């Protein structure tokens, strides 16, 4: 910012809230004063700065600054900061959280580091939960006494810096609240494009100090005994996430925005000088975009709904072939629904599609009793036993000859794929559906062929069209 054109900002503290609420000797005030000094050094537009706070005593901090403020839930501050930055990469987003937040929100911390999203995390690390009564946190040193570790802490402390550094944080520093260079360090972290974290050790005079006879020198001694270095521990400059997203996914270069477009609300009422009292405006929704609109090209011969169950195995393309049957039906002026059932491990086990073809709109999409079934594999046969048992003499069962004999009252049409030749596992469903259409004349085979040509890649379409030819002898 040009100091000759714009008046120098001398403080980012909100002077209406002059006095901090912290206990005498608490490190939080020291850190906030130094954060203020860093902001003064950077001369950022306060409207472009968001201080995001977590829960705990440090969570009160945002109220003492004349910047934007976002006070969120415990441990989740980094997620709000990420959302702010993703929506508006121009924002300078500063998270203030305690060691408690690093525990409950550790997962978000690691992922923000890994993502290199451009937010600055200031950790006010005083080794315990000051707000709730001095319980131990993830950074409480081994052996330390807290209200929840009366006999000494049995857990080893989390190294916050090492944790985010090993996960790719692009600026990592550790220091203490007493550090005279802290304003400069904070300014560097805030100016850094990618994810930055400062682990700032400090005193909780209400709990940790009296419980452990702790002091500034004991704090420095703890750093030394744990062999934890201070200062800047890691810096890299790989791309910041919100800008990388715009470059990679939005082709931001073409928009000439330098990859930092903010997300205004489309149709959001101009935040102009005229009053926005009264009702919000409205605008027409975007026109519907569809890539696969289907004209009615063929006739159909249905006068009542036909409920079909296709039961096969993973790898037989049951689901995609059933949807070809559906597209063909739409091309023939029919209504269609298709429900699929398969295990979560999609490449093994059964695959069942339930298709209803109807001259009128379909409401109930279940098929407790099918009018026809296509049985193509043992895996499918096992899961459709109830529907199989529901078939009557008026219904038809199309069966892969390998599954015969099958006990049923329905009319059985065997499908001898081996004898037909040229039909492999991946096209057996297409051949079976073609046989079904030939047999029933629900709609012309040409409609199925058209569905294949319209929706499938040429190579797959060729396989399916060949299988349909081969199915003529089934």
């Amino acid at each position: 910012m040009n100091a000759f054109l714009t008046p120098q900002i001398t403080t980012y503290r909100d002077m209406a809230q002059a006095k901090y609420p912290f206990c005498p000797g608490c490190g939080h005030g020291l850190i906030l004063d130094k954060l203020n000094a860093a902001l003064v050094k950077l001369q950022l537009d306060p409207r472009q700065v968001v201080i995001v706070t977590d829960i705990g005593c440090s969570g009160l901090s945002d109220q003492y600054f004349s910047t934007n403020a976002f006070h969120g839930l415990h441990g989740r501050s980094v997620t709000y900061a990420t959302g702010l930055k993703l929506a508006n990469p121009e924002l300078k987003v500063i998270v203030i959280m305690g060691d408690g937040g690093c525990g409950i929100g550790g997962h978000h911390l690691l992922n923000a580091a890994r993502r290199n999203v451009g937010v600055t995390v200031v950790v006010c690390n005083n080794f315990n939960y000051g707000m709730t009564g001095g319980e131990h946190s993830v950074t409480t040193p081994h052996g330390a006494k807290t209200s929840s570790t009366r006999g000494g802490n049995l857990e080893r402390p989390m190294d916050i810096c090492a944790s985010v550094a090993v996960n790719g944080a692009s600026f990592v520093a550790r220091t203490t609240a007493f550090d005279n260079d802290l304003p400069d360090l904070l300014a560097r972290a805030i100016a850094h494009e990618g994810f930055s974290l400062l682990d700032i050790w400090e005193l909780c005079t209400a709990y940790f100090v009296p419980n452990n006879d702790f002091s500034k020198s004991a704090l420095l001694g703890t750093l030394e005994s744990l062999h934890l270095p201070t200062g800047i521990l890691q810096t890299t400059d790989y791309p910041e996430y919100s800008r990388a997203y715009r470059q990679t996914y939005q082709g931001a270069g073409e928009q000439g925005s330098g990859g930092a477009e903010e997300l205004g609300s489309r149709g959001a009422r101009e935040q102009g000088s005229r009053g926005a009292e009264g009702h919000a405006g409205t605008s027409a929704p975007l026109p519907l975009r569809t890539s696969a609109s289907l004209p009615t090209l063929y006739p159909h011969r249905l006068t009542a709904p036909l409920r079909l169950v296709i039961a096969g195995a993973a790898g037989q393309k049951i689901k995609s072939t059933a949807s070809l049957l559906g597209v063909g039906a739409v091309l023939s002026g029919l209504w269609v629904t298709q429900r699929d059932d398969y295990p979560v491990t999609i490449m093994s086990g059964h695959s069942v599609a339930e298709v209803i073809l109807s001259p009128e709109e379909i409401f109930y999409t279940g098929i407790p009793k099918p009018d026809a079934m296509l049985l193509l594999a043992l895996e499918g046969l096992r899961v459709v036993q109830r529907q199989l048992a529901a078939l009557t003499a008026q219904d038809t069962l199309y069966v892969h000859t390998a599954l015969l004999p099958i006990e049923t009252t329905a009319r059985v049409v065997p499908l001898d794929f081996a004898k037909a030749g040229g039909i492999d596992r991946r096209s057996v469903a297409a051949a079976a559906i073609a046989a079904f259409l030939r047999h029933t004349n629900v709609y012309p085979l040409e409609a199925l062929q058209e569905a294949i040509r319209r929706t499938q890649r040429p190579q797959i379409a060729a396989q399916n069209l060949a299988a349909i030819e081969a199915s003529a002898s089934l």
Partner: protein
Amino acid sequence: MREFIDGAEAIARGALAAGCNFFAGYPITPATPILLHMLRELPKVGGVGIQAEDEIASLGFCIGAAMAGAKVMTATSGPGISLYSENIGLGIMGEVPLVIVDCQRLGPATGGATTVGQGDVQFIRWSTSGGFPIIALCPTNVLECYSLTVRAFNLAERFRCPVFLVTDKEVVSTLTSVNLDDYQAEPVVERRLAPATGDFVPYRVERLDDVPPMSPFGGPHLVRFTTSTHDERGFLTKDPAKVDRLNRHLAEKIEAHRDEIELVRLDPQAGAKTLVVSYGITARSMQEAVALARQRGQKVSALTVYSLWPVPERALRQAMAGMGRVVVAELNLGQYRLEIERLAGLLDGPRPEVVGVHRVDGELIAPQEILERVGDG
């Protein structure tokens, strides 16, 4: 012209039509297709779509983005709503316009990942601490997935609160033929922003039921947003008058405007003494059951509830008045029936008997099952 698509795609299209430009989600069956549609489509319109590290972060990202000016949506299933819980509270307290799609599956915990259920109906209403209202819409088919998604965004802007689109495995994943001409959407409600000049007080309302205008982070004003009980400037407060006013405002801005939210479809028949009430995928079985009953010469009326929360009390009470029996069909053990029973108890004159048709075995309720309860009424 027609097409063959599922509800997930219609929801994504509805979101884009409504101006959604930010989506964060975490993969979960059966909501994943919505995540994938949005990740694919949003960058094409200059928006941002991201897969977060978990559901907590998904909603956290959305809330941050919304307050920076974006129109946001997320989608999950019941177990994900469990993890959204605390941030749903934040959405209510901070007054965040937010659309949350719940693709319900069966049972508690992991339950049946690929199995239909409607067991989240009371859960989404009471999904966070404190007990404050949310809005929930419930489509029954692909076209309504589109139109009610647009409406959900509009209500989120109008009321600055989380709005749920309550769907299920069947509605989002069943491929269905639809006419392109039949897609309907209401005009998109723009975000109401504060004037760029003058004092901006983020939570100032004249009347309790007013909704304060917004100013995005990074906009012309300094903005304070908070999860904690706050005064109109967004500072923490314990002043009983201010605390009371905030909490009543959060309820009143929705409760006092039920008329703007209530949405049902009544299919009445003159002389009917039986009313069937249903919602979501089960309402489709109801439609078929009612058609069958009328073919048989039985007189029956039907009501589809589209705005599950707040309960469309006026429409329901009107439809229930004079009925001898109300049949409630749903894929749970009677969650919405509780609301119908409560309303039946408030009717003047004779109160109808309320009976339920319920399934929790992963199968849809068949029209025949509803017909049986209509038949003996």
